[in-house]
């Protein structure tokens, strides 16, 4: 093991309480699942942040590329009509 080998990168998700969604809270380095779980507990839950932890290998997450930004997301910038609030509802329409 070289001195700068800190294991692989993992992303950590915390659930605030049962039934709530898991939210990304940060990342950590660990050599395996067990170590990742212990470190996640120590790094991210000791101030009562939650009572559920999910951990995913960072390399297993499929992520959009920053360089794709223009092609992926810009075309939706000027299309406000894709929001329902764009449309005026005539006064006579009920149940909407």
């Amino acid at each position: 093991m070289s001195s700068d080998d800190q294991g692989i990168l993992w992303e950590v998700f915390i659930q605030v309480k049962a039934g709530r969604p898991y939210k990304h809270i940060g990342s950590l380095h660990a050599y395996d699942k067990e170590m990742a779980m212990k470190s996640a507990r120590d790094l991210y839950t000791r101030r009562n942040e939650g009572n559920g932890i999910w951990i995913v290998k960072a390399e297993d997450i499929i992520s959009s590329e920053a360089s794709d930004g223009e092609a992926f997301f810009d075309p939706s910038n000027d299309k406000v009509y894709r929001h329902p609030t764009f449309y005026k509802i005539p006064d006579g329409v009920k149940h909407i």
Partner: protein
Amino acid sequence: MKNELIDYCLRLGDSSLILSHRIAEYCSKAPILEEDLAITNVGLDLLGQAENFLTYAAELKGDTTADLLTFKRREGDFRCLHLVQTPNTDFAFILARQFLMDCYHQILFSKLISSEDETILGISKKAIKEVNYHLDRSNDWIKRLGLGTTESNERLQNAVNDLWMYTDELFIDNSTDIAMNKNKIAPLSSNLKSDWLEMVESALKFSEIKIPQEIRYSLRYGKDGFHTEYLGFILAEMQHLPLLYPDATW
């Protein structure tokens, strides 16, 4: 009886206090960031347990506080075990010392949660949850180091060899143990030994670490106020600031 109860609280409080100080010395020096935070968290848990026991000792004594007991007490009045006084060497040594103490704490606190003394019972109920996690972590590292590389196994074996001679004190009964046991406040130290040995030996054997021979190296013990040469240096560093600047606050 009251004096023995104070003495017992000092033993538990001082042992956690000095171990937490040794861990604090290691802060920022662990091999990886995640471990540095984790071991420091353990130290903070121990400091909290020390504060609880020293606060209770101070209440029983009267006219003092946990802070005064920590920062204005002489070496001979400390009651910490020799094992926690040992100076840090490498990661394997720190984790091995932690593992031996975690096993001891786990077995001790699991008995103290049925103490007839309500304060000790209360502190122990809170502490046992922390200790169970400490043990989970140090036990994990014993396996990783023992079954890791030739070097990690060798370092762990050396650490266990060096630490083993300090473990007999954990199970020696003195007059305080006898009084605590008689009043159903705490078990005899000697009664913890077989559980501890079983726990420690099975983990070490699994991790391919040889159990050293049992040696009685010391005629006098920390729990009686007779310390290793290391404690004076720890206290000199720990007490230096409040002794030099008695009015310092933060």
